[in-house]
């Protein structure tokens, strides 16, 4: 359960103040699949940073699974990111010269999970995304779609409350895009909350609910209707 209450984010560049988010209220239920859309400058990235606990709001309250994370210090935020959030980035963000299995293991290392259990969970996560046979491949030996699947395995491996995907198909061809979106849908169907940031309608079409941001405010919040792909106003 994700709840934003009057969340604002203010940036100051010299004398100019920019409201990247202004008093946003948003509730995302467990097991939902939400796409957040909007043109550049709409506050999408700020939304992603706040939801991902990479940045704290200037004002307002952000409850993640019952924890108010809007006022936490850096180390606690790191812990929340580690345990509650799985990130999938546009540019994959795998660590270079490090095998797929080791990349997937990384969040478990920072969580302090023992070596044996870490290995087993990383292997299982890679199998889950269909890369059971690519454990020891380096990122540069994998295709874009495969790299993104490694990143999804890494996001999954800690069993987080939310998978936060920031333009996950932005660097992929259309075949890989469908492949990755199918994977996210599958994960959502097994009960995982997925929040997707995108500017493409086709990609947003895979979500159950689409939220549109403009100038830091939510201007549209529609439900796609389960499985139908056709939404109506909420």
């Amino acid at each position, binding site marked *: 359960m994700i709840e934003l209450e009057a969340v604002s984010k203010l940036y100051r560049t010299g004398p100019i103040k920019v409201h990247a988010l202004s008093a946003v209220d948003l509730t995302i239920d467990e097991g939902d699949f939400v796409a957040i859309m909007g043109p550049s400058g709409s506050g999408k990235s700020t939304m992603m*940073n706040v939801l*991902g606990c*990479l*940045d704290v709001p200037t004002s307002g309250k952000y409850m993640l699974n019952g924890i108010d994370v809007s006022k936490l210090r*850096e*180390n606690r935020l*790191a*812990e929340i*990111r*580690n*345990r509650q959030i799985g*990130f999938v*980035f546009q540019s994959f*963000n*795998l*660590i*270079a*010269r*490090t095998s797929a299995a080791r990349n997937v293991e*990384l*969040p478990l*290392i*920072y*969580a*302090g999970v023992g070596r044996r259990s870490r290995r087993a969970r990383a292997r299982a996560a890679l199998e889950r995304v269909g890369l059971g046979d690519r454990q020891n491949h380096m990122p540069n030996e994998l295709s874009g779609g495969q790299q993104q699947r490694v990143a999804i395995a*890494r996001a999954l491996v*800690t069993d987080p409350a939310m998978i936060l995907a920031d333009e996950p198909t932005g660097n992929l061809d259309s075949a890989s895009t469908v492949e990755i979106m199918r994977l996210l849908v599958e994960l959502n169907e097994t009960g995982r909350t997925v929040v997707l940031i995108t500017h493409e309608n086709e990609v947003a079409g895979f979500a159950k609910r689409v939220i549109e941001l403009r100038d830091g405010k939510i201007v549209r919040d529609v439900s796609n209707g389960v499985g139908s792909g056709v939404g109506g106003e909420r």
Partner: protein
Amino acid sequence: MNLLETARIALRGLRANRLRSALTTLGIVIGVASVIILVALGNGIQSGFNDIFGSLATQITVTPTQGSAPSGGRARDLTDADLEALQDSAKAPNVESITPVVGGTGLLQLVGGGQYRTSITGTTADYLEVNARDLQVGRNFTELEARTKAKVVILGPNPVNELFNGNAAAALGREIRIGRTIFRVIGVAAVSGQQDDVAIMPLGAARSYLLGGGDTLSSMIARADSVATVPAATDQITNILSARHGIREPAERDFNVQALQSLLDQSSQFLTFLTLFTGAVAGISLVVGSIGVANIMLVTVTERTREIGIRKAIGARRRAILQQFLLESMFLSGLGGLVGILIGVGVSLAGAAVLPQLVPDFPPPSVSVGSVVLSFSISLLIGLVAGGYPANRAARLRPIEALRYQ
């Protein structure tokens, strides 16, 4: 998140840039090795010095004041009676031995050959040992020869150079005229740098045939029974002679008692300073090496900003990032330290084995454990300090900015 895992991550980071890591390490290797080698050389020279002069550390020289006594009146000579008084083991318990010396000059003439004027030392059989004087050929004179005023002489290197063209073996057994008396050469002293222009003979012979002078002595060379008792022995000698010469105030003394020890201590201390100084100069290369480590760590952190962002996004705390980069720089400098120790100790030991064969009298380098421990600790410290700023910078990076970095 434990240290072992961080260490693994740090090692993987170093292995990703093998050549760069190796070159950075090289700076520390050279620094540590040169500190160890230079300190080993310095130690070698110092212990060589102690070997040569250490036997003189217990030596105390007694000489009469020249001319008039400080209190006025004629200074009294040192005499055979003074010598006997100092041999009294009840009054002078710390004086192990005392050797009389009479001195003067004499003309050395080779029958049918050249002539040379040199200084004459008349003394007892233990003179050579007390002065740590070696013979290159021949033998010392015996107690019997000393008592019987035998006409035998040990030549220093200079007369041998003048009269025998430096051929010591040729001098041995030859008869030479000194003054009006014929002496037989029974030995040639080795070069000592001092007192090379000398002819050494039994005290009685020197007095009877050359110098005359009744019972007076030019000097006495005493030996304390250990290095620790040199001051006590000096006091005992001073007291006995003061009593015999009727001296009440120290200022009235008509003799000097000089321990060689204090001079040796000063020289030895000077050598220690010299060793420390050369070690410090070598330490400069260690400083240069550490700047190299700091530089590479800064490059590494900048280069890997994105990686740091990823790690932070997926839950690495500041501490984990700090540890990762600190460990990287400590591995670099620590490895450099270890290799530097191996090379430094290896070169010093090889030098100790080879140098004395190539250059006679070269003091073999001796590795000091202190310099090994110290230079390794310094290299680890360098890792900590040189890595500190870059690692701290990495740990403080904000994840959103680090992720955006291209």
